[in-house]
């Protein structure tokens, strides 16, 4: 892979575009499964920015932050999907607008 000269700004551009798409998905979807997917996209795009920055300076720190983001995403998805099961069972729907009252 020697001789590759990808500009850092272009990778950051891709990363920010992915983040923007994820955030738009977060805002325009009401299905909780799509909201969780959008969160995954956003976490993944920040991980891409970290790895790109680590590669820019030739340091392993970027990949370490990537691994920490990975564990955050795994924990978040496990709890989030548990909540999805509860919401589907209680409201018979995945519309988040149903769950706007925390009356238990």
């Amino acid at each position, binding site marked *: 892979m020697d001789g590759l000269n990808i500009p850092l700004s272009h990778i950051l551009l891709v990363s920010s575009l992915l983040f923007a798409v994820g955030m738009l*998905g977060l*805002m*325009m979807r009401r299905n909780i499964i799509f909201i969780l997917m959008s969160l995954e996209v956003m976490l993944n795009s920040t991980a891409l920015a970290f*790895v790109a920055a680590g590669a820019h*300076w030739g340091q392993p720190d970027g990949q370490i932050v990537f691994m920490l983001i*990975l564990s955050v995403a795994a924990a978040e998805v496990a709890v989030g999907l548990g909540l999805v099961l509860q919401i589907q069972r209680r409201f018979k729907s995945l519309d988040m607008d149903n769950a706007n009252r925390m009356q238990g």
Partner: protein
Amino acid sequence: MLEISLFYIAATVALVATILAMTRANAIHALIYLIVSLLAVAVIFFLIGAPFAAALEIVIYAGAIMVLFVFVIMMLNLGEEGDAREKQWLSPAVWAGPTLLAVILFAELLYIISSVEGPVSTAQVTAKQVGLTLFGPYVLAVEIASMLLLAGLVGSYHLGRRALDRNIHEADARALSESNSNSTSDSNADKGAQ
């Protein structure tokens, strides 16, 4: 030149797949596009000299986390009416406004990013370097991540177990009342069990 175009192809695939994933009505179709997007990001990781991150991206993101999504979508059993409802929710009037405002902010972000200069390093950051740094200066972060994963494990076990227990109890109670009254057909009992 060919190698650089590989990066742009992978980036385009990632973006298109993510946009398609965010706009699908069917959750499984969206999930397939999302997996393609994650694989494209893994290709980018390979190209910028982070092979370990690329392997983790495929194994954990595209493998484990997406499989969790697939399992939950299969358990929910959404079907055709769910698709119709999603299409109804996805009218342009809902997202046109936020998109326009976000595009303005994004233009500002692009202006800032365009001032960043210099290529990424061509040298690979190997798994050995990552491991040495991870268990050296970052060992506290590893501990915190393990606590976070433990909390996630306990939390998801708690939430999922209560859902399953109650479903079983409800199905049992419904089956009992139906067998007592003897007035309902078997198909209702099947629906209740689901």
